[in-house]
């Protein structure tokens, strides 16, 4: 029994309480707003709440995609990790993350690190309501939307390191990453930090969410090494995912969730901007499928469902950075390219012994970078925003942004994993890996009664 681990959890939870997730309930403010103002505010806020639900369901999407693409004997473990991450993500975001990512004026160190205090505190009256975000959403909507986002970055890692990582250390990594690293680097752009000031454009997080998760995935894979049986005498052996319907359910749920991920990132229900974002998002997803289908059919001779669904997600990640400003035609192009590259990238990572069972590095890292880059390529010179906040997109700044996340996220993730590796260890025993983590880590099976060959 890993007593130390439980104590850490308990300690964390206790800390949360001492720190006080204290909030002050909003009281009605004195300022008067017209019914029309309130109606518009109410509508905007509904849209943001719908987006919360959509982003929430992405976690189920991740859970099913990841378990579909791995073996039956590790299914409970993957489902468990994805469930735990949602919990850890929301609780730590409540405690620290939200105020670390959106420090407001509480910058501690340049525009690089800020912190607005522990716990949640909704400004009283209209300040936490209609006045909170220009009538677009209230404080609580803001918190929950961002909180649902936050857990995503850790979930990305989960699939990449699946089938061999120890449960406890993985959860510790996730907690640290989602509590500290993601909000810290996220503040650079979305919190109004230095990259925002430079004019870096990452609409809904090709870099801020997907690459941030992707870099950690890469670090984890490198430190863990490939799964047993993946590389035998120098040749690559496929380790097949066990459940294609689960994978498909997951991919569709992720696309669905992306409507909220990208559509919600407009941060209002603007009837022109939001459906435009939904359109570019959908067309990039559709084109991602098409691109992957063509690539897979050409390269593999027979079209591979798992590749095509990865292509769909690749298109979605690719469009995420520029869904608001790229044209419909470019959105299709971005989707096609990302979809096709996804196929090649999955195969390439396999060959260079980066054993990523679900293609997370391809989808989130490679296409996250590409998507951010494409904004610089296809929208170079575009002016975004109005008045004081306006900035001009440039390929150079996009590159700076990509690089700055690379040089922070990868090393930090590497260090955390390294630290865990040299203390408690991060990889399960060979015996446990053969028997499956479901038995090893959880003492139970995912498909009790079913006859399943576990010769691999």
């Amino acid at each position, binding site marked *: 029994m890993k007593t130390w681990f439980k104590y850490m959890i308990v300690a964390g939870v206790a800390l949360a309480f001492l720190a006080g997730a204290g909030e002050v309930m909003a009281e009605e403010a004195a300022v008067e707003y017209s019914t029309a103002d309130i109606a518009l505010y109410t509508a905007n806020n509904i849209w943001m709440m719908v987006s919360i639900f959509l982003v929430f369901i992405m976690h189920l999407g991740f859970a099913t995609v990841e378990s579909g693409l791995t073996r039956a004997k590790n299914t409970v473990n993957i489902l468990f990790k994805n469930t735990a991450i949602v919990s850890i993500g929301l609780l730590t975001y409540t405690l620290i993350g939200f105020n670390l990512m959106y420090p407001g004026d509480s910058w501690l160190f340049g525009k690089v690190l800020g912190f607005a205090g522990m716990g949640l505190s909704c400004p009283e009256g209209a300040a936490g309501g209609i006045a909170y975000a220009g009538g677009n959403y209230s404080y609580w909507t803001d918190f929950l939307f961002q909180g649902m986002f936050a857990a995503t970055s850790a979930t990305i890692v989960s699939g990449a390191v699946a089938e061999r990582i120890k449960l406890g250390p993985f959860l510790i990594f996730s907690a640290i990453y989602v509590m500290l690293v993601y909000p810290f680097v996220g503040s650079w752009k979305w919190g109004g930090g230095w990259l925002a000031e430079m004019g870096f454009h990452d609409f809904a997080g090709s870099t801020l969410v997907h690459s941030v998760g992707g870099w950690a995935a890469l670090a984890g894979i490198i430190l863990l090494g490939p799964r047993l049986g993946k590389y035998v005498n120098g040749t*690559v*052996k*496929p380790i*097949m*995912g066990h459940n294609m319907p689960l994978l498909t359910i997951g991919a569709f749920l992720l696309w669905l969730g992306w409507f909220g991920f990208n559509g919600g990132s407009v941060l209002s229900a603007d009837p022109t901007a939001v459906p435009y974002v939904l359109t570019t998002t959908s067309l990039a997803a559709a084109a991602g499928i098409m691109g992957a289908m063509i690539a897979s059919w050409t*390269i*593999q*001779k*027979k079209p*591979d469902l*798992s*590749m095509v669904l990865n292509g769909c997600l690749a298109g979605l990640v690719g469009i995420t950075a520029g869904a608001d400003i790229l044209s419909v035609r470019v959105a299709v192009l971005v989707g096609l390219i990302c979809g096709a590259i996804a*196929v090649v990238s*999955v*195969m390439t990572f*396999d060959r260079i012994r980066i054993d990523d069972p679900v*293609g997370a590095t391809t989808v989130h890292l490679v296409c996250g970078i590409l998507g951010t880059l494409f904004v610089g390529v296809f929208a170079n010179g575009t002016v975004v925003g109005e008045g004081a906040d306006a900035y001009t997109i440039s390929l150079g700044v996009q590159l700076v942004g990509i690089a700055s996340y690379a040089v922070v996220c990868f090393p930090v993730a590497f260090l955390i994993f390294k630290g865990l590796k040299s203390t408690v260890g991060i990889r399960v025993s060979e015996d446990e890996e053969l028997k499956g983590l479901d038995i090893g880590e959880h003492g139970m099976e995912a498909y009790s009664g079913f006859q399943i060959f576990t010769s691999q």
Partner: protein
Amino acid sequence: MKLIVAYIQPEKLNAVKKALFENDVHKMSVTNALGCGEQMGYHESYRGTDIEVNLLKKVRLEIAVNKEYVKKTIGAICEGAKTGKIGDGKIFVMDLVECVRIRTGETGYDSIG
């Protein structure tokens, strides 16, 4: 008494069963198996990596019969399973020392059928 074990193509199971019934062999046990034989496997490809599958899906029959049924049984299996194509399968015959019907405790000749 003999124990006959046969590996056949899965899709031939119904035909074999029919042939056996017509030859008065009504009792049998069936499991699914993977077989490796003369039949070439096929190639699957998963996420761009090729894999040669040479364990093909087969159905395994196990039939205990009295001596006078051995020939009929083998004949019926061949009749139902034969296509002339590679992969049709094999039949193995072993001596059966004893047979017991659990319900009644009967043994030997009577317990088989």
